């Protein structure tokens, strides 16, 4: 089992850094292409959500977003901590209307839905002003 810890800043540029980190973990932990893609998506959605919605600072000051990725042959556990506004994806995310026709479908509201669909569990706790999110993804046999 390996643990990768990194501190990202709440800015769009750090998403490229995230891509590089994921490529490295994927290679060292022998994730297959599908798992790598799913976790890349999960992390992008969660972190973009924090960058875009967690902060109201008028001066656009940067905040730290702590990320850890624990990977072993059975599962991958991702932990994310930010000091933004309280946001519980289990309660606060609007569920997107997936049945609506293109013309009537509202733009957005999808990211968190994809996170739930592509992972096995999502847990949230607010602790001393910090949002802590733990996402678990089981690895299928052979991955």
């Amino acid at each position, binding site marked *: 089992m390996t643990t990768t810890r990194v501190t990202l800043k709440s800015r*769009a540029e750090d*998403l*490229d850094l995230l*891509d590089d980190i994921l490529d490295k973990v994927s290679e060292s932990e022998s994730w297959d*292409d*599908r798992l790598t*893609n*799913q976790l*890349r*998506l999960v992390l*992008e*959605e969660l972190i*973009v959500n924090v960058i875009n919605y967690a902060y109201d600072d008028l001066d656009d000051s940067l905040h730290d977003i702590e990320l850890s990725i624990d990977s072993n042959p059975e599962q991958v556990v991702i932990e994310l901590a930010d000091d933004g506004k309280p946001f519980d994806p289990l309660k606060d995310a609007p569920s*997107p209307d*997936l*049945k*609506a*026709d*293109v*013309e009537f*479908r509202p*733009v*957005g509201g*999808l*990211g968190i*839905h*994809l996170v739930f*669909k*592509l992972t096995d569990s999502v847990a949230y706790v607010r602790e001393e002003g910090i949002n802590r999110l733990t996402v678990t993804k089981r690895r299928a046999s052979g991955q």
Partner: protein
Amino acid sequence: MDIKTREENGVLLVELDGRLNSTTSSRLEKQIKAWVRSGSQKLLFDCENLSYISSAGLRVLLTGAKLVQKKQGQLVLCKLSPNVREVFEVSGFIDIIGVYDDLSQATQALE
């Protein structure tokens, strides 16, 4: 991500190469708006070399689909990689945007 285009019989063929994510999607959005402004109504995306898409990318394609629909046009995609197809299926977008296996099927859908 690279975006290559060519016009064929009134259809704008767009080849996407790379990752369509929250960093690259705004560039594609600007391009789509410019194409529609200059009269393109039929957009065909060749996704053979598109390795990744996130909700930001889906959103831009949906915005594009709505935009061309208003002009009685259509936006379709073809040759999705398994990873991109999975995101289309999980998001439900597979049912609201035309997705085809190959170029000829996608072209037919635009006629």
